[in-house]
């Protein structure tokens, strides 16, 4: 059933009446997603792309069942929207919003486990299970259903790799964009655990970048727990220390978080590391083929 979302997923969009929210609701519907409700305070009774709008998540859920919330609410109000969705009982939240303060995200991450809620993002493109459900802003046109799992800290690099995979005839089970912030929800290890257990997924492409030590910890996990092939790519080898490279979390601090240490940790764990996104797609295709023939 791929991971996290499939055609049974029922999506609610918070911030649906905003420019981004309305635009991407249309795109999610076009990608075959079951978008069942939208929320913007003060807009109850309206419809966006045929989707009914409510004042609050609680009100929406009193009328319609939903299990995934996609958040387009601007950064100053995103924290509240996250709390609202979790408290209303939503179990999977995808937060697209960029620029949320670290303090707000730390508070959200302290609260979500108490509600049993899982978060993707923030500052992320969301996730997609091709032809079944898109929860976020990934361009569904370049995807195709298949066996490759993709988990990434970068949106456009995901598209780049997926585009190559699709052109080579290798479809994707689910692609997850974790987002570029220092404090974020789902991580590599959680996604890898889900991909390992997923029957459709036969191999995983992991796309990392500078900052933090998510890749180093993922390397250890893959070495210890993954039976399916994993191939990796790390961006930011030429990044100067102390400068934020676009993403809030993409920063080399002192000597830690460099692309070189991450690539080395992955290689030491026996994971092939590609020199470019196109090589990553090639490596994954080969790994999946090898797995099928042995």
């Amino acid at each position, binding site marked *: 059933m791929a991971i996290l979302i499939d055609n049974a997923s029922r999506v609610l969009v918070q911030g649906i009446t905003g420019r981004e929210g309305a635009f991407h609701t249309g795109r999610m519907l076009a990608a075959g997603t079951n978008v069942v409700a939208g929320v913007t305070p003060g807009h109850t009774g309206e419809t966006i792309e045929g989707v009914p709008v409510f004042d609050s998540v609680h009100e929406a859920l009193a009328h319609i069942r939903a299990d995934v919330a996609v958040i387009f609410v601007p950064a100053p109000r995103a924290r509240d929207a996250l709390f609202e969705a979790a408290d209303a009982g939503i179990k999977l939240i995808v937060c697209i919003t960029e620029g949320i303060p670290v303090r707000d995200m730390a508070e959200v991450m302290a609260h979500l486990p108490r509600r049993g809620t899982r978060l993707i993002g923030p500052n992320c493109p969301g996730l997609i299970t091709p032809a079944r459900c898109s929860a976020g802003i990934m361009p569904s046109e370049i995807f195709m259903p298949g066996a490759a799992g993709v988990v990434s800290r970068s949106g456009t690099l995901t598209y780049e790799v997926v585009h190559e995979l699709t052109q080579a005839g290798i479809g994707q089970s689910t692609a997850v964009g974790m987002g570029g912030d220092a404090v974020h929800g789902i991580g590599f290890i959680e996604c890898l655990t889900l991909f390992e257990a997923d029957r459709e997924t036969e191999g995983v492409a992991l796309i990392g970048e500078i900052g933090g030590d998510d890749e180093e910890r993922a390397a250890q996990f893959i070495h210890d727990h993954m039976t399916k092939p994993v191939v990796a790519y790390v961006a930011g080898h030429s990044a100067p220390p102390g400068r934020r*490279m676009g993403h809030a979390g993409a920063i080399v601090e002192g000597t830690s978080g460099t692309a070189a240490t991450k690539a080395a940790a992955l290689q030491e764990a026996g994971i092939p590391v590609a020199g470019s996104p196109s090589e990553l797609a090639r490596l994954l295709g080969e790994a999946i083929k090898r797995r099928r023939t042995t």
Partner: protein
Amino acid sequence: MDLLEHQGKKLFSEAGLPVLPSVVARTPAEARRAAEQLGPRVCVKAQAKTGGRGKAGGIRVCGSAAEVEAAATDILAMTIRGHAVEALLVERAVDIAREMYLAITVSREVRSPLLIFSREGGVDIEELAKRAPEALLRRPIDPLLGLLEYQVRDVVDAAAFGPDDPGGTGAGKGLAAVCRALWRLYRDRDATLVEVNPLVLTSGGELVCLDSKVTVDENAFFRHLDMALPAPEDRREAKARAAGLAFVPLDGDIGVIGNGAGLVMSTIDQIATAGGSAADFCDIGGGARSEVAQAALEAMFAGPPVAAVLVNIFGGITRCEDVARGLVEAITAAGVDAPVVVRLDGNAAEEGHAVLEAADLPNVTVALDPDEAVRLVVDIARRRRAAAAAAEAAVAAPAEGEGV
């Protein structure tokens, strides 16, 4: 955004943390006047956004106004680890009995604030963490509960003040108050780092924050209207930021524009692997429209001349056609003659190629895939560099002959 020591100390003082009387000086004369007011013994400290100021000679204790003026002259002329000294902090000197370390930072791993304390301060904390990890007390702070009293007690216990310390065990009360105030400051000012190194116990038995290192979260400036990013020194960065673009100046000679932070980083890496060197990191973002592409190119040409430019776009939401239109407009309007290699793929790539073809600009080359684009731009830049060097040599050669 990193604050300078004196900016951090202003926040410390507002938060009720103990700091010494001090004055900011920008000239040796100002430093002398400050010393006369604070003296006789003062410490003259370089204000630069970097560590290692002491080792570099950027911090001097002085006993007279004349000594202060001399120290100020020296230090103001210094560059420490690539950072120019922006100002001086002239601070009353104290006698130090003990140096400790106290900080709160954000831990990406536990996704929460982390309090760190060490009995041993005034040292490089990363070095200490490697040499004697057990010397560091670490306590994650639940952001919803805040700093708890038992955690404050843990810090006071770890400090282990004894009868031999000035002020005796009474210093513990002061330390507890410092911990609480530092946490309030961290939370209320949306800091991602507050570091006191060293936190000192004076021979008079008082606790003092001798240094301050504060990093505040730029994303939270909407609720701290007194905070603003300083204008970037780099003209390209200033122009790009005004247009809402993420821009980082680099040292190379190949201009880079792309959409998405990861894609731009990856492009820069591949240029380096192919033997070239990028002049910048410029991310025009998802859903970029033609004005944005134009602004990016304009920002790039506001800086030192580049040998060549690579525009690498993978259209997800971004329509390549829009980017192509922006590029054509910017190149035509600014009369750009540097070679530009363009790679467009994904959303409306064919329409984008048609726009470039119709414009028929002599300096624009279209590459069909990212690997080819990198190869092309590195090759063009190499040839342009070689040609420029040859031209220079041709000019220099006769001059050399005349000199003999």
